């Protein structure tokens, strides 16, 4: 899982050139795929081109960066749920650990 870090202390998910906090160049590093659910929603009214429902989670990655992504299973929609980020077809998904 890629995150970008800055000397100002800002850490954000995925690759990013300039820090959104201070404008300095960020350094992109690879971390593990562990994630924990901070909040979630099931979206029923979706924009054109998407299929309802969409399970969305905002998760915290290692070192505190956050990532918004789809959740594979409805059963994993729970604040505090631990799991991993998996990548399929260049899209990120949250998958809960076996309970």
């Amino acid at each position: 899982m890629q995150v970008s870090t800055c000397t100002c202390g800002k850490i954000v998910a995925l690759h990013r050139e300039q820090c959104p906090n201070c404008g300095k160049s960020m350094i992109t590093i690879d971390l593990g795929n562990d994630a924990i659910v901070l909040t979630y929603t099931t979206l029923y009214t979706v924009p054109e081109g998407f299929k309802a429902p969409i399970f969305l989670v905002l998760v915290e990655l290692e070192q505190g960066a956050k990532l918004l992504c789809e959740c594979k299973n409805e059963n994993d929609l729970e604040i505090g749920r631990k799991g991993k980020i998996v990548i399929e077809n260049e899209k990120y998904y949250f998958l809960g650990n076996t309970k």
Partner: protein
Amino acid sequence: MTKVYVSGVGITKFGKRKESLQTLMYEAYVHATKNQEQEFDAIFVGCMNPDEFVGDSNFATLIADHLGLYQTPSVRIDNAPASGSAAFEQAFFSVASGHYEKVLVLAGEKMSIFPTSIATRILSKLIDKYERNTGATMPALAALVTRRYMHDYNLSREELALAAVKNHHNGTLNPYAQFQKEITVEDILKSKMIADPLRLYDCASISDGACAVILTASKTDVKVTGIGHATDFLSLQYRDSLTSFNATKVAAKRAYKRAHRQPKDIDVAEVHDAFTILEIVNPEDLGFFKPGEGVAALIEGKTGLNGDKPINPSGGLKARGHPVGATGLAQICEIVWQLREEAGKRQVPANIGLCHNIGGFVNNNIVTILESC
């Protein structure tokens, strides 16, 4: 710096309107000028997306032409759903600087032409591209915030609904509101699920409408005493807090500093309740209540018309309707009426009022303080 005062204000009824956007703006303009011929040094037009919603660009010229204000400088301000307050802010600067003496601010949007799915797609472009590509919509982001707030502060689904109940009640007293009908907690809990836990009646409507405000260097009975403006990261995933919005906190701090006021001095406020959760979070971020105490304030009636901190006497975005570009200026109109004791049945005692308008998903916010003088 030149002192800046509000002269006339005008608004159209919000809702599904058959007229064109320029016709709605003309209606608001006639209301603000009381149909008296006036000259303006400039026109500031707040409108988020006429290109996509009504198929017109070069909208500032179109409006000057439509109003018959030949040769008057005209500029359009797009600041997402904070376009109305941003146009007001830029107009304020133009008079405060001494460059102009009297200017016209117009704001409006016509959104009802398209079905909800297309309007949702247009509005979703306000969201960061990565987040948008997950399927996230504005209600989805609001739902993520709601879910976390419910978890952290034990907010119940029924309590959340009270925000809409209160604002619909206020809307029954506002002849310009899109919805002038009481709703119950049960109505809200039975409405269609949009983004769990937010239902249809938790979300502001797709609406048409326009407003007009005249700003002048000549003294009137209402003065603009402070404007504060701040941005936040475009992505929700870049932000530290999920239950509080830094752009509101910083904009408010800047507005209070310029007006030499504190949250306790504000008699009445119009806040950007595009979703019910915002009716609870915004007053906390504006410093009216401590984090987590916005719910109690709502339940105890502190933010009602008879409370000591009335919020959204107009009905807010929820009941007045939310034509995105118009909203910020509609808030200004309401506060000016409150200060002038022209708010009819929804009048509250007020000498100092505050408007809080959000652009994007709470990342380009403007706070304006107006005072009787």
